[in-house]
């Protein structure tokens, strides 16, 4: 019964992983046979300015997206937990952007963020704040992308809301009897009780952010055009271009392994961090 997965694992996961690792030591363009070039691709990883740029862009994005997504989603879920009816409706509304196809999201936000006609700057204008060039100014492209990505945090709201509703009422009642203030209840009861969920979304959202692709590719990239929007060049976009636009399969394979290594390291750091802060009911 496990055979479909075992077969699939060997053919579509383990096998490709080995092939990908092997390819990372070669020059390969699909048409000509791979040529062994030793560690050249790996050395290039550390001297390619565009790769460095794409890494910086991606880290910048993840460093903003993850904390904001977690904090805002938690705030929204807490609001939902405060009302006795209608929470389902609001949850639906918050979730709708998550089911909007990413290509459509990219197109839509290209205009919402448009410096002249976009709603974001029109809103800032109302507050007498001069709106930045979200889609044109190199310093503001990534914050604009973060804004777009936060529109899609409904997933995380759904997860937090479910977790909040499982915190037993007795804990809050006992705390109130002891005279605990709302802030104390939040930090001493709510946060510890949902810390497992918080940690889980931290891991998932980080892995997601490090691989953000479709929306940004839709907004700023077109076929093999080069030189466009270096400031929106995210890691997976660069990886995609190297592999399927320039057919540098060997270099792309090395890039993919670097990404894997980054994800593993970041996740392990988060796991280590969580041992201190995550409370598991019934765990020793």
């Amino acid at each position: 019964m496990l055979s479909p997965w075992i077969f699939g694992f060997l053919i579509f996961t383990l096998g490709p992983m080995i092939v990908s690792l092997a390819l990372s030591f070669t020059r390969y363009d699909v048409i000509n046979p791979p040529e062994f070039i030793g560690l050249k691709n790996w050395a290039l990883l550390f001297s390619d300015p565009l790769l460095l740029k794409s890494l910086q862009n991606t880290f910048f994005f993840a460093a903003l997206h993850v904390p904001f997504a977690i904090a805002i989603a938690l705030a929204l879920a807490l609001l939902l937990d405060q009302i006795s009816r209608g929470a389902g409706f609001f949850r639906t509304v918050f979730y709708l952007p998550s089911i909007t196809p990413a290509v459509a999201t990219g197109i839509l936000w290209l205009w919402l963020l448009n410096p002249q006609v976009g709603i974001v700057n029109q809103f800032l204008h109302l507050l007498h704040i001069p709106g930045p060039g979200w889609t044109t100014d190199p310093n503001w492209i990534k914050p604009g992308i973060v804004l777009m990505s936060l529109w899609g945090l409904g997933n995380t709201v759904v997860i937090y809301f479910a977790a909040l509703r499982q915190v037993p009422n007795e804990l809050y009642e006992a705390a109130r009897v002891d005279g605990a203030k709302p802030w104390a209840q939040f930090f001493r009861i709510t946060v510890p009780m949902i810390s497992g969920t918080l940690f889980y979304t931290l891991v998932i959202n980080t892995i997601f952010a490090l691989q953000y692709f479709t929306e940004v590719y839709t907004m700023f990239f077109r076929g093999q055009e080069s030189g466009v929007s270096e400031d929106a060049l995210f890691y997976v976009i660069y990886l995609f271009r190297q592999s399927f636009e320039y057919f540098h399969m060997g270099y792309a394979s090395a890039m993919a392994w670097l990404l894997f290594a980054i994800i593993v390291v970041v996740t392990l750091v988060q796991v280590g961090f969580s041992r201190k802060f995550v409370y598991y009911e019934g765990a020793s």
Partner: protein
Amino acid sequence: MAVAPESRPLPVPRVADRPIERTGDEAQSARPRMGGSGQILVWALLLILVLAFLYPFVWLISASLKPQGETFTSSLLPQPLIWQHYVEIWSAAPALRWFFNSALVGILASVAVVFSSALVAFGFVYQRFPGRDALFGLVIATLMLPQAVVMVPKFLIWHSIQVGGTNLAATQVPLWAGNLFASPIYIFLLRQFFLGLPRDLFEAAKVDGANPLRIWWSIVLPLSKPALVAVGIFEFKSSWTDLMAPLIYLQNRNLFTLPLGLKAFVDEFGKGGIQRWDLVMTASVLFTIPMLIIFFLAQKHFIRGIATTGMK
């Protein structure tokens, strides 16, 4: 290999260990809540947030109904209302064809992944053999593997297969055929669900001489419809919205799925193209509507699935 922390499984939220029905919709009558003015503040905030979350949709629909050239005027009420983009769109691009392609690929991808993942998940629940839990840990560990690592070799596999003179890498087959071999996140979700089924049922059927496949088909699957539907719509959604795989495999315009079609469309009609953003907006609306319909029909399944697995 993907990291499999030895002593403990990959961190999953505690909610996942509980019955799949828990989504936060259960009655919570004794919940301590803010009263009076606090409630008004909460409701006011929520209503403002609703406006902020819904505005982009309203803007998009409005833009698709404005006359060409007025797409970006700030009014949300088009004057006059123009429906003709919704007629013109079908001749401006093979949109119907892309729509059909997306539906076909999405259905094949969902059906394939539902049955294969259910079979594997049941294997992990029903069969006892040494190393089973370690193997399940491996399933979970593969979740961390970025698709980028296997993307190139997978392409090479499909590229090397010829069927009747056609290279499979140039067809839609790679977009769904991998799903025949089950998918880790769904194995995880369905295993959670199957663990909640009474094991006595399996044992009774076994005593009656049913083999494991028969138990799976006649007992487990019928009892698991909600979970199977959840998996099916999640996979349909991810197939319906996926851009990367179609970008890699599809060259022939007639084979495009909607995400790739819309991307080609925006490159041609929008940026650098002939600036028919009115049509681009119309195409975006048409592309989004089927997902909204599916969502409203199957909302419960979506919410349960996310609350259980944290699916993106």
